[in-house]
């Protein structure tokens, strides 16, 4: 079989498929399981300074074309999370700690309190007050937070961007300027669903983030624009559920691909996509490297 291995954002990966942040990432055991079931790396649930229970339910609503979630960044705080990262390592693949905070010093405190193979800065969650996209919408904040965390930790730092802005490339350039080793695009699109029988917004938090097939075209566009403008790798995420989706991300310029919502169909999605990608590369007589960003060279 053709190799899918490669270096991405400071990590050596056996394949470019990762478990996305916040998906089955609360416990070391579920993260390790993703590694054992074929993921090339795993990203944890986003963790912050203090414990949070998250928003009241419903926390997710499935709509025809995807999922809207408002989990509300539940986490036991970074102080209680190192044990989960250590267990996650037993899955045999790199473990990326997703962290969030309300300012550069909070981000640095959380990241420097954890030992992980890399850090992913959640500057993009669309449904938690004072966190995520509330600060990640401003390029100046993105740059400042990235620089602070880069100073505080030795491991590679990735920055996860929000698509809920008019210019995501500006955010990507700010992350690069701040010293990021890669950007991750995209987090969910801010969204809402209303119960027709009762008139109530369905999510406990009213607003949430849309993921799944519905957002893939937006994610593809963002990855295409970002990879054209940045020198650092772009990790694509949003609506990937089969090998064709992953191929589309890579053709748009992604160095690796994260998978989230599609896990609701089970962990075998990693092996299925890896097998499909390998066959595709053989059929096209191409390497992963040659495939990356091909769509940009075609236009």
């Amino acid at each position, binding site marked *: 079989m053709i190799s899918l291995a490669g270096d991405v954002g400071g990590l050596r990966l056996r394949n470019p498929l990762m478990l996305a942040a916040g998906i089955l990432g609360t416990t070391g055991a579920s993260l390790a399981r993703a590694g054992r079931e074929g993921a090339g790396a795993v990203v944890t649930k986003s963790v912050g300074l203090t414990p949070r229970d998250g928003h009241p339910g*419903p926390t997710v609503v499935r709509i025809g074309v995807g*999922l809207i979630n408002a989990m509300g960044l539940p986490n036991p705080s970074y102080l209680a999370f190192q044990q989960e990262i250590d267990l996650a390592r037993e899955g045999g693949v790199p473990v990326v700690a997703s962290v969030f905070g309300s300012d550069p010093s909070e981000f640095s405190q959380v990241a420097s309190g954890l030992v992980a193979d890399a850090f992913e800065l959640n500057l993009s969650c669309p449904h938690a007050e004072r966190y995520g996209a509330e600060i990640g919408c401003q390029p100046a904040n993105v740059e400042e937070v990235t620089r602070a965390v880069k100073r505080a930790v030795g491991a590679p730092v990735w920055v996860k961007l929000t698509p809920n802005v008019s210019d995501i490339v500006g955010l990507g350039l700010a992350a690069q300027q701040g010293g990021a080793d890669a950007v991750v695009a995209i987090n969910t699109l801010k969204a809402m669903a209303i119960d027709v029988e*009762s008139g109530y917004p369905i999510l406990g938090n009213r607003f949430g983030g849309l993921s799944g097939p519905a957002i893939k075209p937006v994610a593809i566009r963002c990855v295409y624009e970002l990879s054209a403008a940045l020198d650092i790798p772009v990790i694509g995420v949003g609506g990937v559920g089969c090998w064709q989706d992953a191929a589309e991300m890579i053709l748009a310029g992604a160095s690796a691909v994260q998978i989230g919502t599609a896990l609701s169909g089970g962990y075998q999605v990693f092996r299925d996509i890896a097998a499909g990608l390998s066959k595709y590369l053989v059929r096209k007589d191409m390497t992963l490297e040659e495939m990356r960003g091909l769509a940009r060279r075609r236009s």
Partner: protein
Amino acid sequence: MRPASSVIREVLEETESVRTLRLDHSFDPLPGQYMMLWVRGVDEIPMSFSGPDLITVQRVGPATRAIFSLDVGDSVGVRGPLGTGFSLTGRSALLIGGGVGVAPLAFLGERARAVGMEVTSLLGFRSTSEAVFLDRFRRLGRVVLTTDDGSEGICGHTSAGLCELDPSAFDQIYLCGPEVMMWDVIRRCQGMESRIQACISRYIKCAIGVCGSCCIDPDGIRVCVEGPVIRADRLTAGEFGRYRRGPSGGPDVCKSVH
């Protein structure tokens, strides 16, 4: 799926703190499966089916208190049926339940009788005033009852009733109730784990296997979709009976709440 709207047809008072609600349509669940019940404006919580169109709710906190304020004609949001159900195998079943955990077992016992199985029940409650569904279980076969305060039946925890029965004489044992009770029974039935099915509880949020809230150590089983009914031989080596995670994902020691 979006939550469907379901109207409450009937409210049955079981005890001072337990009520059964009949909803306006059957969800065609397997016993052991659950629904996510949305009390609009409050929260969405997991509830086992106690019949095809029934749920049986114990009042413990904000969401269940809100359910107690609902009446016939009010509606709730419902996602389900969800998760795995009990599987009926063999010819004789021993049902072991504690507290409101007996609710899915009554439903299961009725299905078991309908396919000709023999049903024996071991039921534990804090006190006779908290017993639910005794009549439903008595219609199915022999019932061994325990109460913590000795007000009826054997005085003691549910497992005290095991001395009246030979668990190894049953083809399959079905468990639902407080975790310490289930853990106690599983330990006393050593060697029979592959014949025990337990309906367990973890903090369920998404109920579709993505958020990670319900995963249990050491294998990362997603209780919301790969459970809540899990064979006991998959429960002995990790967190079950020892600790459980709360809404933040941080572990708490298993309280003795029987």
